[in-house]
């Protein structure tokens, strides 16, 4: 296996772990926050370096130079591949921005030690290829929020029940699947258990109540850190995708789509900003799952793009909401708060990130969303239309929330509402990523498409399925159960369902 030039993966895993030990020893909370910020910043640097290094290698997967874990366990424990490579910087950015934007008034209730520990676990999860290790790390990642809930004296039963169910299903499924499971000979029961476990973790309806419950009971930061990396979707890709047959994946896609539409509808009736965010996020993450399970190059590429765009935009959206909440306390959405006059900068970020999450033109989510819709329509036209519906409902919900929080009679407060420098920097970084990715989408799309092709090729090693994209997609389209799309005859132009693309066929 090719090697990175430096042990970036080990650094991204071990540095936050060491930082967790260090910051937990610091009694002064403000100093702990500074220390955590430095650790998170360095982790982000290492994660970006890993991505860059990996991209320069032009390979599907790679492991560390001077790999201590390989030396210890005699196998590749930490590996980066095309799927996980951009997720490292995204995860590290998530932690850095969350720590940076934690106000002094909140440092006493936000545990930086556990935060860094969970960052280390997340990085290790992304770097793991062994199913058992992934399951173990996913289980471990549930601990910090649980401990926080206990410390706050809140009920942990909803969270515990769902997480225990998820982990139990994953363990049972993996135990039944064994090491030789593949899509060619799918273990039905094991696949079903693994799928169920991953979907519970993703919050798929009707087992999604833990997500809104967590947002209500835990600190906003802790809830954001647990759900925003979309580890449930990652579990699906690592544990289910390689062994599930196409029809099973597409069934998961339908289930995810129902969740996306349902959660978008639920976001409209929420009076609590945190529950609103929970449902909005659930809708978006379900759309990512829809694309992932389509198992077509376009749909998968779209989902991988949307994964990144939703990660960035929902992170920004959540941080904007958290910043408002940190100043005003609870932000009910059944009335107007009139904050625009005091925090126009925050208002702009709230709106921009919300629009980016729905794939508004010119933002990072635009092309990804359109690829996703294209992929969905290619498999089931009605699914594509439902994706459009979910996106429309989400967009109405986002602007409604913007109006509720930032418009209305101006509210006078005795505390400063302006952004702190750290928040301003965070906002600028987010805006740069959202607009930069939106205006220059080609590199990102190309990279994600390449990853999608590689993932599909690894899923279908048979030569006839990886010979050409056209034939593989066409065969999957025609084979997909109940496909409403007309199956193109050999040699005839493939009809294109995309709203934003032109298919140049043989005439090109």
């Amino acid at each position, binding site marked *: 296996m090719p090697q990175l030039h430096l042990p970036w993966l080990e650094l991204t895993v071990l540095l936050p772990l060491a930082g967790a030990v260090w910051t937990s020893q610091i009694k002064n909370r403000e100093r702990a926050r500074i220390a955590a910020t430095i650790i998170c910043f360095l982790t982000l640097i290492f994660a970006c370096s890993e991505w860059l290094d990996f991209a320069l290698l032009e390979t599907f997967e790679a492991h560390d130079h001077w790999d201590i874990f390989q030396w210890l366990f005699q196998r590749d424990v930490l590996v980066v591949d095309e799927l996980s490579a951009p997720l490292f910087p995204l995860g590290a950015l998530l932690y850095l921005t969350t720590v940076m934007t934690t106000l002094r008034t909140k440092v006493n209730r936000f545990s930086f030690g556990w935060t860094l520990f969970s960052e280390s676990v997340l990085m290790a999860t992304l770097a793991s290829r062994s199913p058992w290790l992934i399951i173990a790390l996913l289980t471990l990642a549930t601990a910090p929020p649980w401990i926080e809930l206990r410390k706050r004296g809140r009920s942990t039963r909803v969270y515990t029940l769902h997480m225990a169910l998820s982990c139990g299903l994953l363990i049972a499924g993996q135990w039944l699947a064994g090491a030789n499971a593949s899509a060619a000979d799918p273990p039905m029961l094991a696949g079903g258990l693994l799928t169920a476990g991953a979907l519970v973790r993703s919050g798929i309806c009707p087992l999604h109540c833990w997500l809104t419950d967590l947002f209500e009971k835990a600190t906003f930061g802790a809830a954001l850190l647990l759900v925003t990396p979309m580890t449930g979707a990652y579990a699906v890709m690592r544990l289910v995708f390689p062994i599930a047959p196409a029809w099973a994946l597409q069934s998961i896609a339908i289930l995810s789509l129902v969740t996306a539409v349902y959660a978008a509808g639920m976001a409209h009736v929420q009076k609590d900003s945190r529950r609103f965010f929970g449902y909005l996020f659930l809708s978006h993450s379900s759309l990512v799952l829809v694309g992932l399970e389509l198992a077509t190059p376009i749909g998968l590429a779209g989902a991988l793009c949307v994964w990144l765009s939703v990660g960035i935009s929902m992170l920004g959206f959540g941080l904007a909401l958290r910043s408002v909440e940190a100043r005003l306390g609870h932000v009910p959405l059944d009335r107007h708060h009139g904050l625009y006059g005091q925090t126009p900068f925050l208002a702009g970020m709230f709106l921009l990130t919300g629009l980016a999450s729905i794939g508004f033109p010119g933002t990072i989510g635009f092309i990804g969303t359109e690829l996703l819709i294209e992929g969905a329509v290619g498999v089931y036209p009605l699914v594509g239309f439902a994706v459009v519906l979910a996106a429309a409902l989400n967009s109405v919900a986002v602007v409604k929330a913007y109006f509720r929080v930032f418009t209305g009679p101006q509210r006078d*407060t005795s505390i400063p509402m302006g952004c702190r420098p750290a928040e301003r920097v965070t906002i600028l970084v987010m805006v740069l990523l959202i607009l930069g990715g939106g205006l220059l989408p080609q590199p990102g799309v190309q990279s994600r498409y390449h990853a999608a092709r590689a993932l599909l090729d690894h899923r279908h090693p048979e030569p006839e399925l990886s010979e050409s994209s056209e034939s593989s997609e066409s065969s999957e389209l025609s084979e997909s159960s109940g496909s409403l799309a007309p199956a193109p005859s050999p040699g005839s132009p493939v*009809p294109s369902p*995309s709203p934003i693309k032109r298919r140049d066929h043989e005439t090109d």
Partner: protein
Amino acid sequence: MDLVETYFHWLGMIVVVSPTILLAALGLPMLLGVSLSETAQARLTKAAVSLGLLAASAVLTLMLTTGSRHVVIELGNWVSIDAEHFHFHLKFVFDRLSTPFVMLSFVLCGVVGAFAAVYLHRDGGYRRFFLLYALFLLGMVASSLAGTIETLFFGWELVGLSSALLVAYFHERPAAVRNGQRVWAVYRIADAAFLIAALTMHHLTGGGDFEELMGAGAWPDGVAAVEPWQALAVGLLLLLAAAGKSGMAPFSGWLPRAMEGPTPSSAIFYGALSVHLGVFLLLRVSPLLDASLALRIIVTLLGLASAAIGALTSRVQSDVKNALAFASLTQVGIITVEIGLGLRYIALTHMIGHACLRTLQLLRAPSVLRDHQMREDAVGRRLTGDDVENKQKPTVFQLWLYRVAFDRAYLDAMLDSWVVRPFLAAFRTFDALERRWTEFLSGPAEAKSSAHDESWEDAA
């Protein structure tokens, strides 16, 4: 590429790039926390609009001189995945439809920009207005000149967002914000219909280029290569999109709501340009209408219904902006009828004339009553018509008609009763059930008070 083509290319580029630069010039300083003076913003706006208009005029002159009816400005692929034949093609077209419409956009935006620079002087939202104005201008130019359906969708969305945010321009007024939200919701329905129509068209024809969709001939001579039932299906979706964008029945309720925005935005968006974008779409896809007689009949009937509702409702409005809004609806309905009847040039001319007239009326609206009152004060008596001369009792039918007009044909009420309330009621029920389920799982020990439910005083 010969010299004329080079001129066309660069002039076309200037038309498209000038509003883009304006948006960047107004948006980036805001982002970086730099405050541009009102004068600087007004000058930037004037320069960008003038440059765009001059370039568009030059394109028109060149087209007339060379006899060209169809000028294509190719900008290449914004995104492409060659292996999947996926291309986001950036292409702009100057033809008999787009050139007048883009020039109209520049002229009216220029007029309204100059008006707004004075009207909004020292207003707290001056910067926000001009930023959204730039966004709107870019959306209009992209929509007008779009050579592919994806580019049209891009511009269509920008216009929708800027319009909705400008309706809610006066943030402190809850009614304005509610109306902005309503406009946004209607626009999103229209956008969804547009997107689905575009998907279906791609599915049917295998391309997003208007040339592929509507035939290779210059507008309006293209022939859509689709079956009548296909044209009907796609056409109905596009009609829904156009109805949402142009405020036609059953969505006409948002038109008076949109008048909550400042006068310049009302004039340019809901009197002049935005309200015509729906009918512009119908004109752009008019070869599709030719493919289905049923579709043409439906378009004509919808236009008639909208015109009738507009004419009736505008007569009972007590507010000048609302009266003008419904008068606009009447004209938009008539333009739609013209499109349905295949009178495309008449529809285009009507659209341009109506946009100019309505802009003038809406810009004049805030001052005309004041001028009238000043004149009456100077003369010392009432000048015209507040007295009701007709002493006859209205008939039952007249009363019924008045009630229908007063309630705006009950269209908003119908949408609320049939769509909005059932939707919200269903999800509120789900929400209540979920909460009960979560409380059941949490057990009785769970305290009611939420940990994050703390006042800002506690946080401080």
